[in-house]
């Protein structure tokens, strides 16, 4: 039978020990802030000012206009004009430019014709990010041009192979932090919550405290829940920190309900704490606990939709990703913070998180034996 006195004794002990563990305490507060700053400033998927050179062999009114429009996108920064493609290649190889724009002699005709490419982009493919930006660039300026040409009536309306116009919702300025910060909540909570609890029981085993504890009337469930409760509070504090820093420095909005966000986070924290406890009952040393946590953290970063768009991943990776709490939490945070979605609309994600928490905690309590052998 559960005893509130014993449960609270464990909670109080955990809080006392946590308060005296300066490093861990520092990590709780420092980690989220530093991570948001690092990710917010450094991970910049909205590439701007790529160094570019142009070889405008047509040198017509239309082509000069195209070059001007290209420069105005701010995606590229035209730093040189050269005579031909060979010189562009030299600049590319030297690393002086990332993109070379070749406008052939018959540029005007090619724009009208549309059967042949009007412009060649020579791209430094060694950086996939640049390549993907250039790929995005491909359609846009010409689309713009065609539209303008059409209104000017100079060109045939054969440009019906409608250019793809990209109009981003929810993050119109396409600022990376807006996407990163909600995802980062999941990453940071995964890291701290899982790690803290993964070492929680194995640390007591290493220090010898466990031999004392399991000889007391405390039950497995009391010990598990007592260890988890303080971290739920810590997780929610971390969430508040991340949201505040995101708001203050990167202007990341919370369009939905804060209560919804906190409810979602509570379910997610419980899921990670449960997994951490399960790890702690399975490993023999704190070092092993950390290794397992890192093993779990990597897919949580790579397969959760934080790094790469979830729908674009291979099917198998998607199946794996569906098993990770972070995948579901990122859907929740992006939904609530950016799209003003209500928690009830996103209930399947919440159901998964609660289920995950219940299963892992039960498994941990069952696995944790009050014996030494």
């Amino acid at each position, binding site marked *: 039978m559960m*005893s509130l*006195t*014993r449960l*609270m*004794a*464990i909670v*109080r*002990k955990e809080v*006392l*020990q946590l308060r*005296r*563990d300066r490093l861990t305490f520092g990590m709780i507060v420092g980690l989220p802030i530093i991570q948001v700053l690092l990710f917010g400033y450094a991970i910049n998927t909205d590439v701007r000012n790529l160094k570019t050179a142009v070889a405008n062999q047509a040198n017509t009114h239309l082509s000069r206009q195209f070059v001007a429009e290209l420069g105005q996108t701010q995606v590229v920064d035209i730093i040189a004009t050269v005579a031909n493609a060979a010189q562009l290649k030299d600049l590319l190889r030297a690393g002086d430019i990332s993109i070379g724009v070749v406008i052939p002699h018959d540029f005007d005709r090619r724009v009208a014709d549309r059967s042949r490419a009007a412009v060649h982009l020579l791209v430094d493919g060694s950086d996939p990010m640049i390549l993907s930006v250039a790929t995005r660039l491909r359609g846009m300026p010409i689309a713009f041009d065609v539209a303008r040409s059409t209104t000017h009536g100079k060109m045939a309306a054969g440009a019906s192979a409608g250019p793809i116009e990209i109009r981003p919702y929810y993050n119109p300025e396409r600022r990376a932090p807006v996407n990163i910060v909600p995802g980062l909540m999941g990453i940071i909570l995964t890291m701290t919550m899982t790690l803290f609890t993964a070492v929680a029981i194995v640390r007591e085993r290493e*220090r*010898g*405290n*466990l*031999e*004392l*504890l*399991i*000889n*007391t*009337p*405390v039950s497995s469930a009391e010990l598990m829940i007592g260890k988890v409760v303080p971290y739920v509070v810590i997780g929610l504090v971390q969430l508040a920190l991340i949201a505040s820093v995101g708001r203050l420095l990167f202007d990341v909005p919370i369009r939905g309900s804060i209560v919804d966000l906190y409810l979602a986070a509570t379910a997610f924290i419980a899921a990670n704490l449960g997994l951490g406890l399960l790890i702690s009952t399975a490993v023999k040393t704190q070092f092993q606990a950390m290794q397992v946590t890192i093993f779990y953290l990597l897919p949580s970063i790579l397969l959760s939709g934080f790094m790469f768009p979830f729908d674009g991943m291979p099917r198998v990776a998607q199946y794996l990703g569906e098993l990770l709490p972070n995948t579901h939490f990122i859907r929740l945070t992006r939904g609530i913070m950016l799209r003003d979605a209500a928690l009830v609309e996103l209930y399947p994600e919440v159901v998964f998180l609660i289920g995950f928490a219940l299963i892992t905690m039960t498994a941990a309590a069952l696995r944790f034996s*009050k*014996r*030494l*052998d």
Partner: protein
Amino acid sequence: MSGEFAIEARGLSKHFGAVRAVDRLDLKVPKGQIYGFLGPNGSGKSTTIRMLCGLLLPTEGSATVLDTEIPGDSRALKPRIGYMTQKFSLFGDMTIFENLRFIAEIYSFPSPDRASRIDELLQQYNLGPQRDQLAATLSGGQKQRVALACAVLHRPELLLLDEPTSAVDPQSRRDFWAGLFELANAGTTILVSTHYMDEAERCHRLAILDHGVKVADGTPDDLQKNTGMHIVEVLADDPYRAQAALSTISRIASVTQLGIRLRVLISTTVDDPLRLVDRALRAQDMQARVQLMPATLEDVFVAVTMTPQERAA
């Protein structure tokens, strides 16, 4: 179960792979006594204690501990026993008071009396001045007193102490044992393991363990009277040479040097042990005073942990 014994073990065994850490141990610990487990490191003392409090599952055999069957559900047993681990197992990053408070809460000690019980223990174990000191920063003797205070806080009927004095100075050990006798007088049964002879001597009864096997048990007096060995003390000019000379005699079971004296164990099957020793030394042109002595517990220990070949010598 009869009300006479706090612990009754029947053929208790624990195997770790091929190693028989404890091998068919029979044990009867009377209530209200201090019962000692004497044995070298690795003799199975800790393993036995851990089996008795339900921390380890016996490979074979069973035990009755305070009416609770081992192996079995030991939950009902936990509140009735106190256990002091060999290694300091309290929380080093908590103060003495916080540790005691935690133990009081975890044993659901009635809350109105909690504070007074903690004060009482702090005073009894002379820990008042260190009340708010972190446990990790205490001296060996202080740590041991805190550990004992925590083990007895809930007033257990049975106290299991696993080498409680292995890391403390002689004065602390004396104080510690004074505390144990107080508890025993108040009715607590105490099972204490040790590898100190002087501590074993203080126990009401003791069992000597060697390689997982109980090789002797009884009161210290009985054990000393029934070693099956003559104890001959040899005072020689050159004890080192004398020892070398005596060691070659096959009928001498053991020779140990203690300062300038030699302690010689000879089986009681030898009729005149003094003559045997004397002749052996004379053969090597050595003069020595030899006399028969009563057995100490150390002699008992040496005698009972001999191999059968040594003993039959």
